Each structure stands twice: as C-alpha cells, then as structure tokens.
C-alpha cells in the first residue's frame, strides 16, 4: 500500500478504477467483492466507499458500501447485499466478475470509525447487512497487538432474518478468530433447538447483551434506518450517553 499523504499528493478524493480480484457468496443474498485498488491510501474500520456505475449511454448510478476488510488487510473488501428491485446491488452481486473494473472513491467517513487505541468496552449492534462495517472493526480488533486488546472487550448483537441470512457466519461462530462475544437474534425462522434470541432487538436484549451504562461502552449501531433509530432510542432510555452511541443508517436504495 502506498500512503498518498506520505508522498505529498493532495488528499483530494478521486474516482479510482479497482479490479475485482475475487468474489465469494456470503449468503444467498450477500456477496463479498475483493478489490485490488491502485494507490489505495488505506482506511479505518467503519469507513465506506462510493461506487459509481456508468452505462455506455452515459446513465450513472452511485451508491455507498461499507468496507468489510480491516485496515491491516492488503486488499479492499466490500460485502454487498442484493436488493432485488435495486439497480446497483444486483449488478454487483450477479453481473460483476473477477477481472472486471469497478469505479470507487474513498475511503469516506471520519465519524463512524473505531480504532483499538480508542479503547472500549466495545458494543456493536448490527441489523442485516449493517454487520459489514462492524465486521471491519472486529477484524481490526482481532489483528491488534495483545497489549492494546487487553482492556477492550468486544460484544456483538446481530439481528438477521434467518440463520442463512447471517453474513460471515463461519467467522462469527469461530469466536477465537473474531474474539468477541457474539449474540444472534433471528427475527423470522430459527432452526430447531436454536439457543439464541428469536425476536427483534428490544430493550431487555440490549440490557442482557450490552454493558451497563456505568461501564461507559462505546456503542456502534448499523443497519436499516428503523432498526438503528429504535436501538439508539432504547440505548438512551437505558441510560447510555448519546455521545457514546454512533449510528450508521443503511438506506433502502439498492
């Protein structure tokens, strides 16, 4: 990786043509794109990129996607959930293939970011594909030196429709790799003998899974707008300080 600032280039955000190095399906509806980006300046956990698609007739569509890979990763990974009536996510999930170019700009965002040096405890709350930037934080945490990690316990509460919709399921089940206490809430169907939550995220769940307000956790909430607003309101009701709660709403445009 080249640090553009180190070589004196201006920090202007330009569109870059990345190359798709690998793709893999995470679930029936979510796919990870591994991108090679020339001159990628590096990023922080929680940031996103803008993706621009231009058709031959000049028609353009632009969306934002969170970065799934941690700052330590040599490649840039995006995980995209396919929204069937969208126009960008079906392209990224179904049409784009290895070797194709993809126009991106980034990294973007300085607010919804976390660095292990900022400390914790860290409480992550995800709904659906809102897990993506939080996964970058967990991967960053897993890659950090032990002395930085020692005082930063991490807990994740992740709400998905069914077990099959859980993105990064293998990685999350291997708690040793992400090193976080992971709680899943399934809102639609759960397999027989399911030991996790089987309802939408509510106040009781946030109190059971998260830290009490007096431990001053940093909380990051990401998911669909109604979930994010409901969780943020509940956290404030429980007594968490609003300035410790950071939110990222994922809109319905695909």
């Amino acid at each position, binding site marked *: 990786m080249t640090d553009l600032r180190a070589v004196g280039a201006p920090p202007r955000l330009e569109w870059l043509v990345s190359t798709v190095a690998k793709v893999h399906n995470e679930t029936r509806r979510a796919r990870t794109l591994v991108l090679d980006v020339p001159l990628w300046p590096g990023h922080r956990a929680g940031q*996103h990129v803008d993706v621009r698609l231009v058709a031959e007739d000049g028609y353009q569509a632009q969306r934002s996607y969170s970065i799934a890979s941690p700052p330590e990763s040599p490649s840039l990974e995006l995980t995209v959930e396919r929204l069937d009536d969208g126009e960008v996510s079906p392209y990224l999930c179904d049409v784009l293939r290895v070797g194709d170019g993809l126009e991106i700009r980034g990294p973007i965002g300085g*607010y*919804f*970011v976390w660095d292990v040096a*900022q400390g914790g405890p860290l409480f992550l709350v995800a709904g659906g594909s809102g897990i993506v930037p939080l996964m970058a934080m967990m991967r960053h945490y897993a890659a950090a030196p032990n002395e930085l990690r020692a005082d930063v316990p991490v807990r994740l509460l992740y709400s998905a429709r069914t077990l099959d919709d859980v993105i990064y399921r293998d990685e999350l089940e291997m708690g040793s790799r992400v090193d976080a206490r992971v709680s899943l809430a399934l809102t639609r169907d759960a397999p027989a003998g399911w030991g996790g939550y089987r309802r939408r995220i509510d106040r009781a769940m946030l109190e059971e899974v998260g830290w009490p307000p007096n431990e001053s956790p940093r909380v990051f909430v990401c998911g669909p*707008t109604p979930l994010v607003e409901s969780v943020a309101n509940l956290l404030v009701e429980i007594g968490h300080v609003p*300035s410790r709660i*950071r939110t*990222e709403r994922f*809109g319905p445009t695909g």
Partner: protein
Amino acid sequence: MQTEEMRLDGNAAGGMLREVFALEVTAALARCAGCGSVAPMGTLLEYGHGMGVVLRCPTCDTAVVRMTHTPGWVRLDASGIAFLMIPETPTPAAQV
C-alpha cells in the same frame, strides 16, 4: 414508504462533502444556525434526494447543509452552520 425511513446519517454524504472540503468533515462539530445545538456532521440526518443532498439538524430539522451538482458546478449552501470545528487528524485528543 415514509420519508423518515429513507433518512441516513451525515456520514453517507461524506463522499460528496469531500468534493468541497479538503478535510474529512463527518467528524467535524457543527453548530446549527437554527437552534444552536452542536453535533458532529456525521450525526446530521441526510435526506438523500435525486436533486441534491440535504443534511438536517437532528434536534430541530433545520436544513444545515444543502448541496447539488449541476453541469459544471458543485453548489453548497451551508448557511445552516453557524460554526464548524474540523479535526486536523483522524483521532484528535478531544474526540469523545
């Protein structure tokens, strides 16, 4: 669909804001010219709109920032910001 379900955070406008600002401003603190409350730009409510981007104060709904692209121009109306404090480094000491 209600318009409330479509709103995003100021974060989402970070790319467009970087077309105007040399520094990353989603972590910057902005004082709303409408109600005086101070909040990081990333916590403003973004109403994504095909015609442009509108960032509103989460406290009083004042349109704090409005931004459009028209051929050859980027336009920014930031008259809803009374004061802006931008961190020079990604994780300044003062950050909560």
